């Protein structure tokens, strides 16, 4: 990660464009209104496309030309770094002009407040991707210091740091090595590291969201909930997306899927399926300029279409099986499907991903199973402690989240439990936190 001062101009550019576009859209009617919406969207998508997708596009075109034996003039790659949080704040900026265009939001006249809406620091780098209806009015309101907000915010931040430092970064040590050399590991190592990755990315990203929500709450601002215990309660992929990265899912739902589904409505179910495929392919691409993410998105699209097509059948089946058994088995099946999709999300290349899938499903055991895969680099009996800690703390996290709501606000009325819980979490962070780990995964998007 690097701080490149000139990149501030990118933010400034989109802020100026969208601020002016918002005011003009509100005051205009007819074609000019639409024109300024298009200008705003093109500016935002253009910046995103240039920084995030130019080299991806170029590599693919060059690859295609090489296949056709046209190698005389390969398009040169650009040496550019993706500005941190670009995917998040361009989407947040677009939601503003679209909502003004739709008449759901008044154009913001105060330039400073509009700029703050785009750059509000708790959620600038990795969301939640807010809507103007939820945020802009909060910047106009007076915020007085409230010690209860301070307590709630700090508690949520503490929980976020726990998930990131104690669980995510510890599991990452295992995952990173296995996914760097997937061909060198027993299928059980591949299975374990894939499950670990599911927990890693959940704790990493929801941990960041908790820190963002908590730090906003300390200042008296309320951001939208981004995660709602997806692994514990999602009985199918559709429900998973209602609980995972909610701000992105609803963004795509409001601004891409719904308009597409309406446009394709005459094709009935096939139209909806097409809308799902396009939405999730683009959602995959939003996560990263790599075919692995596109395949990940398409796998989710397939699972969602399956959910849609089998809804009635599954309802019939559910009536024949005891509700609790049906629910638990649905959660487990959803968890397994998610893990298969994580392989594509985490693998460094498409061929690595398919190799991992192949080795898992053919129960590859040409190399011995290693409990502590870090033997590979440290030549020692490393990190039984670390792995044990990761598993135990993941279990603690799941139990806690099954008993408390996403904001942990129930603890307000139970001071002793709150005291014991927060003390345990803080001591765990001090003694077991991995402080030299990586930055948040979603910072790269």
């Amino acid at each position, binding site marked *: 990660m690097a701080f490149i001062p000139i990149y501030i101009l990118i933010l400034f550019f989109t802020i100026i464009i969208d601020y002016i576009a918002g005011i003009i859209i509100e005051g205009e009617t007819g074609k000019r209104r639409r024109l300024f919406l298009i200008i705003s969207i093109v500016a935002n998508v253009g910046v995103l496309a240039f920084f995030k997708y130019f080299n991806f596009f170029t590599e693919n075109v060059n690859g295609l030309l090489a296949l056709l034996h046209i190698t005389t003039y390969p398009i040169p790659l650009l040496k550019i770094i993706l500005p941190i949080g670009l995917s998040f704040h361009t989407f947040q900026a677009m939601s503003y002009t679209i909502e003004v265009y739709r008449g759901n939001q008044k154009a913001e006249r105060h330039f400073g407040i509009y700029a703050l809406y785009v750059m509000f620091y708790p959620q600038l780098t990795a969301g939640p991707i807010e809507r103007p209806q939820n945020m802009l009015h909060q910047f106009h309101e007076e915020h007085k210091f409230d*010690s*209860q907000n*301070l*307590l709630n915010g*700090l508690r949520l931040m503490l929980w976020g740091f726990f998930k990131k430092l104690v669980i995510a970064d*510890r599991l990452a*040590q295992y995952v990173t090595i296995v996914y760097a050399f997937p061909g060198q590991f027993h299928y059980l190592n591949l299975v374990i590291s894939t499950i670990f990755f599911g927990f890693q990315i959940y704790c990493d990203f929801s941990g960041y969201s908790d820190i963002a929500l908590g730090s906003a709450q300390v200042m008296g601002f309320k951001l939208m909930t981004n995660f709602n215990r997806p692994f514990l309660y999602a009985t199918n992929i559709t429900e998973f997306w209602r609980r995972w990265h909610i701000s992105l899912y609803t963004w795509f739902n409001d601004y891409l899927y719904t308009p597409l589904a309406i446009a394709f409505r005459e094709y009935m179910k096939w139209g909806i399926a097409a809308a799902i495929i396009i939405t999730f392919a683009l959602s995959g691409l939003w996560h990263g300029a790599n075919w692995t993410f596109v395949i990940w998105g398409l796998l989710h699209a397939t699972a969602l279409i399956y959910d849609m097509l089998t809804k009635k059948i599954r309802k019939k089946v559910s009536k024949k099986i005891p509700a609790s058994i049906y629910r638990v088995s649905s959660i487990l099946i959803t968890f397994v499907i998610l893990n298969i999709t994580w392989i594509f999300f985490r693998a460094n290349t498409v061929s690595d991903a398919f190799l991992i899938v192949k080795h898992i499903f053919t129960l590859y055991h040409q190399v011995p199973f290693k409990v502590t895969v*870090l033997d590979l680099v*440290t030549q*020692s*009996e*490393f*990190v*039984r*402690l*670390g792995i044990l*800690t990761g598993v135990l703390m993941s279990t603690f996290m799941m139990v806690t989240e099954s008993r408390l709501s996403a904001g942990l606000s129930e603890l307000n009325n139970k*001071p002793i439990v*709150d*005291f014991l819980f*927060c*003390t345990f979490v*803080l*001591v765990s962070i*001090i*003694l077991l*936190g*991995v*402080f*030299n780990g990586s930055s948040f995964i979603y910072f790269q998007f």
Partner: protein
Amino acid sequence: MQPFIRIIAVVVTAFIIAWPLATPINKVLFRYRHHDAKRLTEIYENNTAYDMLFIGASRTHRDIYPRIIDSICGVNSYNAGTESGTIHDFKMTLDGFLVNHPAPKVVVLTMDLSSFMKPYDIHFYPQYFPYLNNKALAHDLSEYGYNVNTVKLFPFLMITDFDDFSKESAIQMIRGRDTTDISTGDFDYKGYISNSDGYIKKTELEKVHKNMNIHPESVSSLNEMLEVCRLHHIKVIFTYAPEYNFNLQRTRTNTDNVFSLITQTAKKNSIPYLRDDSLNLCRNPRLFANNGHLNKQGAVVYSAILAKELNKVLPPSADKIH
């Protein structure tokens, strides 16, 4: 309970619980790091007078045996090499050394291809925390962006800087298992630690070519270091330690620029530059533990050669050194 009281109660209780749990782990860790603790205590706390100080990374630490140097050059030398060190580690070593020790007459600085690679990144920085009373060390670490004040205020919090490997080693020692950073059959002497007797059997080169970046901060640190030597009237000598068959240079890129920078700096400051990658021993795999490091026998052979080279570039009268 009032929110403020709740917050304070949590922080105070957590510190009270973590302090007695973390302190023994931190203490034991430094016992596990037996060699490093001895070396760092000598550099940052003791005040022995040395004529010659060797500064560099692992290719100093494991390649230069002071016993041989002392006997051939007739000096009292100390090996202050740091594993995985770059120019910032070298500068910090010199600055910290000069706080308590009299200035050495000569500093032999082994410049590696990777010496300029990192911007302010100290390898395994927690090892320095017990020595923060050394003002120059604390100042340099702080300048490089490490939060030394928190550790000074709450020493038990240094546990947050240790990885799981270190913590597990500490727990094993608390349980009575004797572990140390000196491998069986190896020894240490005046900062030097021997490599094993093993030697290169496979000469396959790494496929990945690593680029040896030159960071401007690193060049500044080198110049600051030379300025410190000038102020203390310390003679500086640059060396490049042996590598097997140029294999490091063959698997790195940007090496010409690194050598050019070192040569130009040496020329500008009238510093002798002993480049030892063309010695005959560099073609003998039995003297190398790996492409970049000599083994136990290789270090003895090379130290003797280096001592003779040093004798040639040092002032003719031994009195000028002593």
